[in-house]
């Protein structure tokens, strides 16, 4: 019902643009059809750029289950009390109204690559000429012994933003005086490399205000982590004595949890904790596996256009892709989406195709007005997305620089969400 109405809006909007539309390589069925699965930084951007730049020449359907999308990026700021959950919320109305995209709020449950169709839980079967998969991440079953998704209320992951973020925040606020917040950090590769450590900073920020004798314990399977020097220096200055990290040298990779008893075992040493944030190992979202475009946990793609190694008519971007050197971040997905949009338009219309170029910057907040960043540029090669150049914030920066970096991150949030969902101004 809703889909039909939106489809009509999309068609009506597209008709107005037909005269100016680029020449189309139609395959006997009218306008070429693109189906995009996943309405996050990768999928929403890809859908918007394909629709916007093809000026109605391509029929674009975006399948996304949620009507209100909470960005994962900046959700740590909600956890830290800097932002409200509603500051993270976005809707898809402008993509339908301004760009003529058919926004279908449904679950994609199957891909038939021979018939070139996507089926949904709601019973739709959508034909495509090109399919764009941007499903984000799922967790690897059994990655943390004792934990599975059914335990996510006792021990939240909060690694998909929304109710999990709110739950974890409520648990932090309900900790007894001097209690323990534990985090089971994920192994590489995973979504948002600095994310767990920004989260520790934000939880520490909250606890410093309401429960200053509380402790934070991180069990980490990784030898090193993103922006490590910046975080560790920041923690020492802003939250002295509060945070302890157990790396693999001391059993940080040998962890079990018991959600019923609220215990964490690190290398056999069982500890009672008050909150336990379990961030398990990750893999590509389920639909990528169902579509048969994964090899192991992730979907291998070409560096030049993010086309699947298994199927020229399927593109996989964002966190789900095994693409090479880019970190799994919202910025990366947004950047990759623009290359995919150009490649898709080139394949389906007479649009010019330009060499792939990508960039990424990840901002993190350590404390009030204390932002840091890491960034890089990348190029597409046949083998992979390859890093060209990069930078990282320095440990000796002035408070003024850190405050500027934080303000810059706020500007980026406003800009990228407008770039994904359509300008709100």
């Amino acid at each position, binding site marked *: 019902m809703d889909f039909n109405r939106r489809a009509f809006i999309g068609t009506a909007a597209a008709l107005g643009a037909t005269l100016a539309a680029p020449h189309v390589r139609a395959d006997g069925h009218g306008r070429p059809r693109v189906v995009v699965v996943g309405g996050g930084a990768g999928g929403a951007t890809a859908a918007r750029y394909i629709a916007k730049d093809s000026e109605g020449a391509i029929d674009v359907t975006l399948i996304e289950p949620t009507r209100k999308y909470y960005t994962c990026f900046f959700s740590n700021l909600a956890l830290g009390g800097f932002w409200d959950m509603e500051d993270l919320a976005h809707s898809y109305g402008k993509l339908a109204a301004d760009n003529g995209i058919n926004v279908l709020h449904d679950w994609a449950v199957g891909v038939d690559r021979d018939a070139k169709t996507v089926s949904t839980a709601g019973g739709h079967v959508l034909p495509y000429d090109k399919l764009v998969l941007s499903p984000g991440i799922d967790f690897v079953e059994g990655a943390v012994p004792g934990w599975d998704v059914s335990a996510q209320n006792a021990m939240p992951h909060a690694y998909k933003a929304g109710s999990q973020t709110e739950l974890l925040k409520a648990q932090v606020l309900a900790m007894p005086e001097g209690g323990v917040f534990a985090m089971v950090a994920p192994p590489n590769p995973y979504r948002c490399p600095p994310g767990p450590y920004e989260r520790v900073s934000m939880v520490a920020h909250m606890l410093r205000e309401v429960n200053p004798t509380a402790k934070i314990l991180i069990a980490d399977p990784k030898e090193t982590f993103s922006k490590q020097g910046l975080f560790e220096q920041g923690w020492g200055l802003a939250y002295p004595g509060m945070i302890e990290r157990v790396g693999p040298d001391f059993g940080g990779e040998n962890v079990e949890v018991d959600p019923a008893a609220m215990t964490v075992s690190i290398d056999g040493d069982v500890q009672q904790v008050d909150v336990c944030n379990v961030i398990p190992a990750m893999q590509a979202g389920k639909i990528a596996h169902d579509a048969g475009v994964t090899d192991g946990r992730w979907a291998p793609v070409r560096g030049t256009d993010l086309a699947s190694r298994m199927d020229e008519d399927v593109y996989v971007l964002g966190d789900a892709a095994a693409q090479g050197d880019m970190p799994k971040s919202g910025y990366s997905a947004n950047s990759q989406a623009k290359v995919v949009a150009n490649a898709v338009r080139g394949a389906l219309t007479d649009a010019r195709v330009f060499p792939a170029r990508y960039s990424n910057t990840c901002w993190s907040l350590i404390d009030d007005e204390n932002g840091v960043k890491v960034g890089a540029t990348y190029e597409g090669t046949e083998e992979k997305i390859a890093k060209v150049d990069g930078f990282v914030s320095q440990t000796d920066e002035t408070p003024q620089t850190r405050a500027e970096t934080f303000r*810059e991150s706020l*500007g980026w949030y406003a800009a990228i969400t407008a*770039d994904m969902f359509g300008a709100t101004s």
Partner: protein
Amino acid sequence: MRAALLATLLALPATAGGAEGGDPVAAILAIEGDAAYGAYLGAECTGCHREGAEDIPAIDWMTGEDIVFALESYRSGAREHQVMNMIAARLGDEEIAALAAYLGAAD
């Protein structure tokens, strides 16, 4: 706001950075920019720059000449900003001219 930004930009020295020496800004301005290429390259800008913003300054008001001057200043290092120095470092003269042709508002 706009006048102040422009004044800041124009007050910066045009340092040499082009491969052929001379005035690199003038060399880029002499190129006829490929606006379609600029539209593709410009998608990298809109992930951070938005209309009316000051936290990351808006660029929609800039003329093609402003764009060339700003990008060349970041590329040469005359203006310093970690992200913009990195972004501009891999822009050739053709790319800057293309961006100016596409983004330049008031030409």
